[in-house]
């Protein structure tokens, strides 16, 4: 079952590489959050109730609901519809992400550490690299934030990959960090939104209201 969720998680990465509508990207992030919730729930059932509920809150509530909702709202408010022409074509992105998945897998396979579980490790590395790639290849700040969110999802999986050894505190700190940055960004974009949007895009977005 966990395997299925991990594979589905990797599938979302493939689709992340080819979306050109930011809203779809956010939806994919939400799906990832839910998947991570599933994975975490299956893995950590034996952990004490407090920890468990904390992790669940982190995945399902924050990753799955709050952050996507917040991002959607930011998009809608600022009439951000589409990724501006990315620096690399979507086809190249797709090739890259496919390669990233393969390379992560080979890497995971070669490392072959006692505590490392290949599935998690592959998925987390893929998410990490894909996040980095998205940050490098795309131009908009909001997409960068989404790249960071991918990265964070990767780190979360990595913490699962090394068993329960990574202290939850680290993860939580990263999440808080990101949450702050998302909030900051939303604030920022809200403020400067009008100045870099064309009039016509704002009119186009009447349809979103």
């Amino acid at each position: 079952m966990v395997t299925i969720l991990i594979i589905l998680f990797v599938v979302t990465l493939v689709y992340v590489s080819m979306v050109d509508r930011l809203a779809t990207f956010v939806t994919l992030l939400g799906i990832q959050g839910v998947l991570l919730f599933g994975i975490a729930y299956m893995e950590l059932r034996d952990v004490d109730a407090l920890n468990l509920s904390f992790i669940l809150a982190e995945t399902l509530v924050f990753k799955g609901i709050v952050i996507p909702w917040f991002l959607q709202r930011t998009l809608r408010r600022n009439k951000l519809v589409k990724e501006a022409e990315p620096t690399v074509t979507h086809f190249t992105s797709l090739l890259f992400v496919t390669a990233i998945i393969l390379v992560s897998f080979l890497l995971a396979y070669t490392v072959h550490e006692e505590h490392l579980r290949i599935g998690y490790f592959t998925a987390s590395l893929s998410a990490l690299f894909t996040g980095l790639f998205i940050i490098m290849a795309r131009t908009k700040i909001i997409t960068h934030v989404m790249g960071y969110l991918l990265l964070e999802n990767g780190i979360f999986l990595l913490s699962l990959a090394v068993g329960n050894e990574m202290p939850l505190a680290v993860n939580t700190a990263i999440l808080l960090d990101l949450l702050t940055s998302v909030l900051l960004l939303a604030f920022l974009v809200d403020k400067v939104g009008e100045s870099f949007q064309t009039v016509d895009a704002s009119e186009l977005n009447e349809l979103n209201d």
Partner: protein
Amino acid sequence: MISIALILLSSVFFIGIVNRTKSIASGRIGPGLLQHLKDIVRLLKKGSVTSTSSSFIFQLAPTISFVTVIVACLFLPFGDQPSILSFQYDVVVFAYLLALGRFSMILMAMDTASPFEGMGANREALYGMLVEPAFFVLAGSFAVLTGHTSLNEIFRDMHLGSGVSYLMAAFAVYVFLQIAMVENSRLPVDDPKTHLELTMVHEVIILDNSGFDLGMILATTSIRFAMFGVLISNFALPPMVPLWGKIIIAIVVMAVFAVVVGLLESFRARNRMKRNPQFIFTLTSIAILVFFTVLILTNKLVL
């Protein structure tokens, strides 16, 4: 034996069901289920016009394309019922037959000296090249999964058990479904309905064909569609069900397949042409995940 009979039978209705679904979805009654067959029969009787620019390739290609699909069908088993033709590694033969059909159709299109058909040929060649890895990765994965290399044995020994294997089957069905859509030039890669020369892939290749050849090409398309239907329905055939049960399952699966195609085509727009390569290559990416899943299933890989 059963598979080829099923293919021929369902190919008669397949396009009909798709079109019917589409027309119902848009609030019309639509053409009868057998309209496509009637069209083909009418075309087969008609006279033909050939281009003065063209050579014998133009005359030969529809026949080659037809034969390749028919022969490819002969390799398809039906559950544990063996196919007519079978030898080791015939998955390769299966794919290369389709490639041969594509090759001949591309040359046929280029033979007419028409820019439209050149356009179609160019797109067909590119998409064909991109779709093939997905098929081979799936075929290779199944070979790994079952330890066999002929379609016959693969489907005979493919037993789905665990949750992961269902996931793999779901992915595989998805990829095959999309391959079928690409190979048969349906949405979102191609749109068989709007007859605009500049936007089509498959339809534009056959712009200059008429009469018997055109009828044969249309027949080829529906048979190829039904062939993928049988291929997909093979995933849904449990080994313990008796033969008649399997046939019923297969017919239901194919009807659902046709309805799904019709519904998919009703509620979305087609891709921008430049988005197609990336869309098609996604299939390979998904197929790669199928391969990994298979590695897990065969315990070559321990998570």
